[in-house]
């Protein structure tokens, strides 16, 4: 196992290992894995293809069902999705579906397969706002259907949290680049450094296009008032973005305090450790039994020697010192650190995009906003806030657009 920020934490399979893992698959009758993949990637089918030596066919299954297959393979919390109901658990443990999928997509890349096809142009235009997984997926789907698709992205690079959030050791930017290239090759235009609401108006996009899909995600990190205007405090997603963009070349102090207990917090603490920070303490509001982070990430954080303290809420902050109170028992905690990183959640920044939100999600029952030609997908849609859900809602929103515009 590698222990460096720039290297993938988990090694890929060799042909022999992927065959061994695929041979553990029981090829069972009703394949719970396939029915529980939010994006419909159909693991039962691609694992079977591996088992019967049809690697190229496996790659086709993954890619056609999930345009971000290589990314999902690396970042999906599979224990919650495809692997959860695995029949093999009746014997020992579930099939490592993510890793098989990674082998397949690496194989696809290595053999330069060109799987996706584009139907002939249908003369219709769609604008997509945001180039995170949701925006990319809907763009890819519509481009394949023959639409002229343009993505507007406020950042200098495409990918949303794939590029800025999920750390390099879990999702290398090289992988993100390749996935985006495949989508660009379908004819999708990406306008970078273009914030809708500022550089272009949503109203204009609505007029110039047959439909608009809003996929702006939740790109702003939350803070509490007690942490405002404090030079020692950083926001988790800003910190992760900076580290990833600089390929890990950042200067960090010796003692860092992280507040928060979700996956983002786990990424922050592991990143800090991989970058050589000596003391990393993570204070978490939830108690262990209610922990939100995925097991895999909690485990890798613990392997790195992070001190995780559960059940405490921050009550005050002055300079580098934060005081906490336990939520249940009468206990106080005071930690002094050189740097404080807040990983307490992300919110949408809808400035200039006049949609009605309710608890971070667009208020609407379908993927369409009222009777307008505006649709939405990803973290701002109902459902779980994961990449694979963004793929799902991206696909479903695109299907709604296609139907709305008269597609079959």
């Amino acid at each position, binding site marked *: 196992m590698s222990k460096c920020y720039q290297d993938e934490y988990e090694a890929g399979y060799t042909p022999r290992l992927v*065959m061994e893992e695929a041979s553990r698959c029981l090829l069972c009758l009703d394949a719970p894995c396939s029915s529980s993949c939010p994006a419909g990637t159909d693991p039962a089918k691609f694992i079977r293809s591996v088992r019967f030596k049809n690697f190229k*066919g496996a790659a086709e299954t993954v890619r056609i069902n999930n345009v971000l297959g290589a990314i999902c393979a690396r970042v999906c919390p599979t224990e919650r999705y495809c692997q959860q109901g695995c029949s093999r658990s009746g014997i020992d443990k579930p099939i490592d579906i993510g890793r098989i999928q990674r082998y397949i997509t690496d194989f696809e890349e290595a053999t330069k397969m060109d799987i996706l*096809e584009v139907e002939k142009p249908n003369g219709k235009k769609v604008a997509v706002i945001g180039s995170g997984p949701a925006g990319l997926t809907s763009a890819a789907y519509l481009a394949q259907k023959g639409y002229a698709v343009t993505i507007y992205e406020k950042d200098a690079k495409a990918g949303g949290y794939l590029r800025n959030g999920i750390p390099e050791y879990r999702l290398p930017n090289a992988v993100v680049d390749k996935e985006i290239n495949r989508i660009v090759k379908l004819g999708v235009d990406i306008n970078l450094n273009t914030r809708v609401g500022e550089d272009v108006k949503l109203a204009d996009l609505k007029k110039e296009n047959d439909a608009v899909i809003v996929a702006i995600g939740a790109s702003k990190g939350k803070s509490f008032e007690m942490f405002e205007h404090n030079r020692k405090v950083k926001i988790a997603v800003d910190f992760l973005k900076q580290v990833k963009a600089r390929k890990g070349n950042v200067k960090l102090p010796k003692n860092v305090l992280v507040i928060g207990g979700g996956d983002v917090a786990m990424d922050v603490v592991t990143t800090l450790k991989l970058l050589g920070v000596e003391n990393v303490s993570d204070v978490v509001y939830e108690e262990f039994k209610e922990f939100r982070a995925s097991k895999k990430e909690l485990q890798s954080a613990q392997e790195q020697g992070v001190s995780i303290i559960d059940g405490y809420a921050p009550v005050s902050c002055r300079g580098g010192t934060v005081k906490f109170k336990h939520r249940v028992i009468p206990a106080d905690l005071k930690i002094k650190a050189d740097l404080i990183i807040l990983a307490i959640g992300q919110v949408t920044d809808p400035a200039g995009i006049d949609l009605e939100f309710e608890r971070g999600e667009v208020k609407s029952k379908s993927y369409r906003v009222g009777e307008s030609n505006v649709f939405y997908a990803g973290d701002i849609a109902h459902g779980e806030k994961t990449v694979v859900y963004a793929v799902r809602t991206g696909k479903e929103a695109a299907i709604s657009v296609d139907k709305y515009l008269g597609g079959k």
Partner: protein
Amino acid sequence: MVRKDLSITFMGVKFPNPFCLSSSPVGNCYDMCAKAYESGWGGVVFKTIGPKHYLIDEVSPRFDALTKEAEPFVGFKNMEQIAEHSLEENLADLRRLKKNYPSQVLIASIMGSNEEDWEVLAKLVTEAGADMIELNFSCPQMTSHAMGSDVGSNPELCRKYCAAVRRSTKLPFMAKMTPNITDMCDPAIASLEGGADGISAINTIKSIINVDLDKKVGLPIIDGKSAISGYSGKAVKPVALRFIQQMRNHPKLKDAEISGIGGIETWEDAAEFILLGCKNLQVTTGIMQYGYRIVEDMKRGLEHYMDEQGVDCLEDLVGLANKNLIPAEELNRDYIVYPEIDTNKCIGCGRCVISCYDGAHQAMEWNKETRRPNCNHDKCVGCLLCGLVCPVGAIKPGERVLKANRKPRNLAKLVLQDSIEKL
């Protein structure tokens, strides 16, 4: 996306793809064959239909599997005879299948005990709408010696029964050979001379695959006893390929139309049969273990293989390997290839050293300090056993040297395996 046409003409009938159910329980009734067609099989060889007077009475249980380490099904043994359903039911199923699946190929398998049986059965299945017929000369566990593999190992009976069938049908038909014979060419030639249009091979191999150590009886146990019976599955593929090559190599059979059977599970297996001269492929054990769905990966994998090989027509691959299988005495024996060890891949398990010492020529030496092997060329004979046992594929064919006193030649031009590794 890569798309290739897998259709191929075999014995004058066009198949949408070469993959067929072989005659066995996998094609026992209408519903099964219908599901197989829906799953994408190009054709079905219906379970062997026998004469009305031959009553089938099967044992229970009737199967056993040969295992190796964690692999549950290396080979498969069955004690089944021919169709259990009545002649009328079978004919009705054939009729319905042809009606509802007109574009997929329906093959009736028949077996008689005398000329009259063969004539009657051929006529009945022709009338029922079969596209072609397979004559089962090869079931090794029939309870009658007038039927089954005793017929297939007797060229004169093969000829006689083929002639009988020829008299009563215009349909193309093939004779299904038994591997329980030294030379399959004799019955195959006799069958073609008798009027058969093609050959299918192989049926199952007579076997005992396990013995219960407490009860001291072979498996499966039928009321304390067992019997020798047919072996199939992956383990029999090498035997099938060998018989097919021998037939294709025989001057009288070199253009024979052959349907290959025996251990086909993957597109790679299928491609091997095609390269050795088969235009049609049949499967049973793979389906019994995994279901009809295996055809999806066989078809798609074969399409990709065609793409990699740059062919648009499956026919172009048929028999390409036949000419490269030559008598052992004609092989080039002038050189040795030494193993080359990839030190980056080697994990230091020493399996190559053990196998070389105990099973080869004590050439692979072991450095105790570094825990790495080194090949001593003075002792190495280039058998490359080491490469087969290496668990990480670290050993491949390396340096080539001419044996003493051989005519010099350009050894760089030798065609060798790219890798010895077996997955």
